[in-house]
């Protein structure tokens, strides 16, 4: 399959990690070896077997729809990298063209 540094760069963009050129060079062959090894799963699971996403066969765990106190806003914002007017302050979210 041979994963290239370019492939890794586009995966990293999807994962929002700004990898350096040096990291891409190291990661591509490492990931290639790992992916080749894990591809073995297709050897056995080709038959019609239901997938398991979870060890417990639980569905729809409900609770009563009642209001419960939530954590104080100050306490949540205390851990934020930047806060303003009792809200999270974030960098611009729209592109230049917007």
């Amino acid at each position: 399959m041979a994963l290239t540094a370019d492939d890794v760069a586009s995966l990293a963009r999807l994962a929002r990690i700004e990898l350096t050129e040096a990291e891409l060079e190291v990661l591509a062959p490492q990931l290639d070896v790992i992916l080749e090894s894990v591809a073995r799963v297709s050897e056995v699971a080709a038959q019609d077997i239901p997938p398991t996403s979870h060890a417990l066969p639980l569905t729809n765990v409900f609770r009563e729809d009642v209001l419960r106190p939530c954590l104080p806003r100050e306490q949540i914002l205390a851990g934020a990298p930047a806060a303003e007017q009792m809200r999270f302050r974030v960098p611009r979210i729209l592109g230049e063209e917007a």
Partner: protein
Amino acid sequence: MSPQQAAAAEIIRLTAVDLATKIKSRELSAVEATQAHLDRIADVDGEIHAFLYVDGERALASAGRVDAKIAAGEIVGPLAGVPLALKDILTYTGAPTTCGSKILEGWLPPYNATVTRRLLDHDIVILGKTNLDEFAMGSSTENSAYGPTRNPWDSDRIPGGSGGGSAAAVAAFEAPLAIGTDTGGSIRQPAAVTGTVGVKPTYGGSSRYGLVALASSLDQPGPCARTVLDAALLHQVIAGHDPCDSTSIDQPVPDVVGAARSADVAGMKVGVVSELGGEGYAPGVEQRFNQAVELLASLGAEIIEVSCPHFVYALPAYYLILPAECSSNLAKFDGMRFGLRVGDDGVASAEEVMAATREAGFGAEVKRRIIIGTYALSSGYYEAYYGQAQKVRTLISRDFDQAFSNVEVLVSPSTPITAFKIGEKVDDPLAMYMNDLCTIPSNLAGNASASFPVGLAPEDGLPVGLQVMAPPLADDRLYRVGAALEAALQSAWGGSLLDRLPELAGR
């Protein structure tokens, strides 16, 4: 050694049960017990580096409250006043939760994990937070952003991972009890390579609320201790239904303490998994494992060879399922609501800041797994990778079901090899992943599993662990087998394995 030092040396070697008994009878105060362990940490943790954070003042204050309760005749928990080390991936207010990552450096959580709350409700004294591989990704603690933990048996070697800090703290007598979390073996593998006891409860047996998620369908908190009964008592404290975790099982906790006290395997059907042994397993690991199985037979257990043909596919399935889940779980570390933010210069967009923050805040292994997960979940590859891995998960559960229709527990070595040298495998991720070969099947199927010390490998003098696997919600069987082995081995050895721990250098 002054008489005071001699007394402290004696305190740190006590089991949690003995400590609790002495504290309850006021033969020893919780403050003295806590101080002895804080002194031990000050002495040896420079060498071991099991802890990322210790708050002695707070620990002594909680110990003081326990002493006051006991003096006032109040009813306290079975482990009241016993010091404990908490893996730094569970939240504890007033102490930073870093998960071994730079991205959460100094972050103070706004609430307690359910496990933490139960420890505090039971009057257990939390000493501090233990080191781990970043976000619990690793088998050696070398992936911690704050430097590796060292194995108390040989400080050039790894203590296992991801919960190497918790296992090393217990092995080095820095704490009699610790909490670990097990996603692919992170409680059991460190227990095996440090000569301690580690138990992964049935998935859903203990709450994940306040446990920073690695892979939500696999993560499970559990006890680390030096003895089987100590682990059982801690298991009893932390386990049980929690409405805050929707995957928590709403059923009574199995009688793990009773099982640890019974230590009875007479007539028990014990299956040896034929796929977990042979090539790639160190001779000393196989030798000690086989001797322990013979010992179980001599105690009246019926030993049956069992085949679990799909276990060989557990490792590849795990290294697709885990990265897939972790790549989505770790998406929340985006530099917006908590932790690190990098490159917010007023010009850069939120997306650019996210990418710069994640590049600066995550270590190499975390990046590797996020990228693999992103790949496995991307359209075009989803069916071939993640979809197939989920089918393998079904096949592994069926292997377990089949096996447990014939035997009560399964056993195998906990790890293929003993503790390796720090640095030996850091550049070979695949070789590192092999450490979890035996432990992963139980995470995929969700059943209960534990590692118990069964001796030292003759070739290197390092601890070997035996893994016991039991059906879901039959956690008590782990403790019956573990306690039977412990009693028989200790009587043969004339003491515990950790009696042979080499003297640590000290400050």
